[in-house]
């Protein structure tokens, strides 16, 4: 399936891109997380402390992904 991945804050600074499209062969958010860490080993720490949103909704790691989903890597938020 084709997914769009969005990077924010520290994840963006390490990966050095705001977003990218990926071909993903797994099923769950958890598998996608591993894929990201494999691709960018330096981002592992940030990704491990991040939560994820799928199509603008916070999502659990067990969630199933589907073609066309937009997945955001959300490091600990710091608004205010």
């Amino acid at each position: 399936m084709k997914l769009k991945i969005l990077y924010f804050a520290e994840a963006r600074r390490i990966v050095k891109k705001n977003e990218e499209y990926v071909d993903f062969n797994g099923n769950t958010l958890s598998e996608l997380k591993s894929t990201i860490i494999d691709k960018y080993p330096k981002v592992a720490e940030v990704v491990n402390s991040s939560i994820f949103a799928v199509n603008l909704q916070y999502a659990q790691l067990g969630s199933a992904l589907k073609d066309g989903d937009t997945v955001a890597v959300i490091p600990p938020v710091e608004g205010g």
Partner: protein
Amino acid sequence: MVKIQKDKIDIQNVEESLKRDDAGAIVFFLGEPRRSAEDGKVVSINYTAYIDMALKEMQKIENDAQKIFKVKDVVIIHRVGEIPLKEISFLVAVSSAHRDEGFGACRWIVDEVKAKVPIWKEIMYEESRNS
């Protein structure tokens, strides 16, 4: 009303928008970048957001606050971009019939926004300006 903006926040404007005959209390929270001893020479804070989702989360918080606290109007504004010290980066304003629910809701909204809305800050130091 929720908003993410680059422009300065006009609190007079917000206050006007909240006025209602049946509201007796308005509680505001204004957050500003803070220079603390341990931070060194902070000159500004650069805020970034996942804007679409931040707006959605802020709207959810507003709706929940109205249900929980029975307040009248709620305004939540967060700025993005580089904010100098002493400028407001974050505003929550709540109008209500009585002060109890106004203080309760305002505090709750501030905490929720800080915990849940995808906004991040990068502290800009005096050195990083020149580098």
